[in-house]
């Protein structure tokens, strides 16, 4: 694959990098591969990437039967099924979230956010956290949207509070939790309270530690002079889906590998010890990366575990897991994720334990 970094790599990622996508009528007749102009020698005229893809696809198609036979190892099939199922389950939410974030990036003026959120960061955090109620969808959606908010100038701490609360307190998750634990509305309430608390506390912590330090990379913006809003929308959407999607698959690969290799007996032997049970389920939630709409059902099926441990599973899962971490690295940078994930994990765990002890 060609090296894509250009001599302009010094461009700060966060600035509005104008994209010169205006029409150039004189070049419309010639296709990308045939034109003779050579502005940068690193740009090939032949679409090597596409050609390679096409050839590989062709080879795979021709060798399909042989491949199916060779790959028919039951363990490998299970792994692939689990991987594909996580990805397929996530794709609609990813697409939905990205389209929403691209809409925010392209069509909502920055002034809207300045007016909508309180100036004071300490007040913006709870406002943004409570706003998480409006975004149905799993955590795959919240990362691109939060990235968009940061692009639009929203205070990072508030955007992060939103990122944490949206997957956990939106109506779909609340309903699924109610369905998973029939006749136990206190579970739904506990989940809501613990998750919102987590979002707010992490948001406020971030205000503190983020002061004067640039801890997250502002996601690249495609807006700029001379670029139509639809073009910005399209570029943002395509960019976000491909990048977040890649990390989604990466996280899913790790989750599927552990899913297929980890014996369930180990998990159950732990259930008898409450503190260990809570910690193990929290870690399990991180590793297994299940969409927040569904983790209530998984929690409900873990009948061997105490209720507080299962609450920890439901509170930790939507805010920190392998899939999310991978996506956050892609959108906000590695340094961000290295700081953010542990803080979130600890806060979520503590909130779940406290709320669980109080309400359950």
């Amino acid at each position, binding site marked *: 694959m060609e090296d894509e970094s250009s001599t302009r790599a010094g461009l700060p990622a966060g600035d509005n990098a104008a994209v010169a996508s205006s029409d150039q009528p004189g070049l419309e007749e010639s296709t990308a591969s045939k034109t003779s102009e050579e502005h940068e020698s690193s740009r090939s005229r032949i679409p090597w990437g596409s050609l390679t893809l096409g050839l590989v696809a062709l080879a795979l198609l021709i060798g399909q039967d042989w491949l199916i036979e060779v790959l028919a190892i039951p363990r490998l099939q299970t792994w692939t099924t689990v991987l594909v199922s996580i990805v397929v389950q996530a794709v*609609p939410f990813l697409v939905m979230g990205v389209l929403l974030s691209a809409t925010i990036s392209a069509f909502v003026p920055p002034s809207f956010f300045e007016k909508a959120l309180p100036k004071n960061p300490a007040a913006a955090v709870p406002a943004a956290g409570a706003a998480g109620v409006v975004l149905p969808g799993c955590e795959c959606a919240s990362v691109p949207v939060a990235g968009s908010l940061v692009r639009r100038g929203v205070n990072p701490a508030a955007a992060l509070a939103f990122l944490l609360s949206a997957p956990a307190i939106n109506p779909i998750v609340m309903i699924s939790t109610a369905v998973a634990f029939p006749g136990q509305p206190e579970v739904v309430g506990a989940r809501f309270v613990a998750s919102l608390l987590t979002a707010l506390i992490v948001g406020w912590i971030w205000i503190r530690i983020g002061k004067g330090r640039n801890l997250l990379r502002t996601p690249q913006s495609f807006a700029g002079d001379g670029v139509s809003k639809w073009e910005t929308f399209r570029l943002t*959407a395509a960019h976000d889906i491909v*990048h977040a999607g890649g990390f989604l698959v990466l996280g899913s690969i790790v989750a599927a590998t552990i899913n297929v290799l980890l014996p369930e007996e180990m998990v159950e032997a732990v259930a008898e010890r409450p503190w260990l049970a809570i910690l193990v389920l929290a870690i399990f939630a991180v590793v297994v990366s299940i969409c927040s709409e569904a983790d209530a059902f998984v929690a409900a099926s873990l009948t061997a575990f105490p209720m507080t441990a299962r609450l920890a599973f439901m509170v930790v899962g939507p805010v920190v897991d392998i899939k999310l971490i991978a996506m956050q690295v892609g959108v906000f940078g590695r340094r961000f994720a290295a700081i953010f994930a542990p803080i979130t994990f600890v806060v979520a765990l503590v909130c779940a334990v406290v709320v669980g002890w109080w309400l359950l």
Partner: protein
Amino acid sequence: MKRDVQALVLLTMGVVIWRITWSDLFLNYVKEPMRPLLLVSAGLLVVLGLWSLAIALRQPAEAHSGAGEDHGHDHTRAPKVAWLILLPVAAMFIITPPPLGSDAAARDSGTQPLSQNSDGGYEPLPETDGPITLNLDDYAARALFDGGQSMTDREISLTGFVTESESGGWYLTRFVSSCCAADASAVKVEIQDAPSPPVEQWVTVTGVYTDNGSTDYTKPPAFAAQDVVAIEPPRDTYL
């Protein structure tokens, strides 16, 4: 990742997901209610892919030498990771991973994915001519948590696939999933009084409830078989 390749990745994602959703193959991985969501998002991916492809082909690369989509990135990792999208896409397209089967069931340990009916008590089964068809998890829950009381003196018909049991007998097995195959757990019922069909074979077993002689909820309930019939795998293999 070059602009045209990005567009192709999006397009391929959309097309492959559309294909497996249109054809019921998606039921190997996720549940039926996901169908409209998958169709819509696949459609959107195709539209986005075609749109981006059209623009990428019309405008040669140097038109974007000002600042293309990868300029300003201070990392080259993300574009490379994005190639991973093609892994599940290729898997779906080329080998179509099968629904979970005996391998996954064998590694699934004791606890059945059943939650005790918190209302207490199970509804009596409706009257039928001939055997009543129950879902395997329904039967297992009634057997384990209700002592089979709602099923006495009834002929019952159960469907699942065959897996081996440790004691040399066989289980009728089915996967229960709440979200998708990733969180699926196996429900197993030990079949007595019938020789084992080939492993992985889907069968319908007709018979009656019988006590498995244990109060341990993790031990599979038992079923006394009167008749075993081989069948084609159902459209949706998960419960």
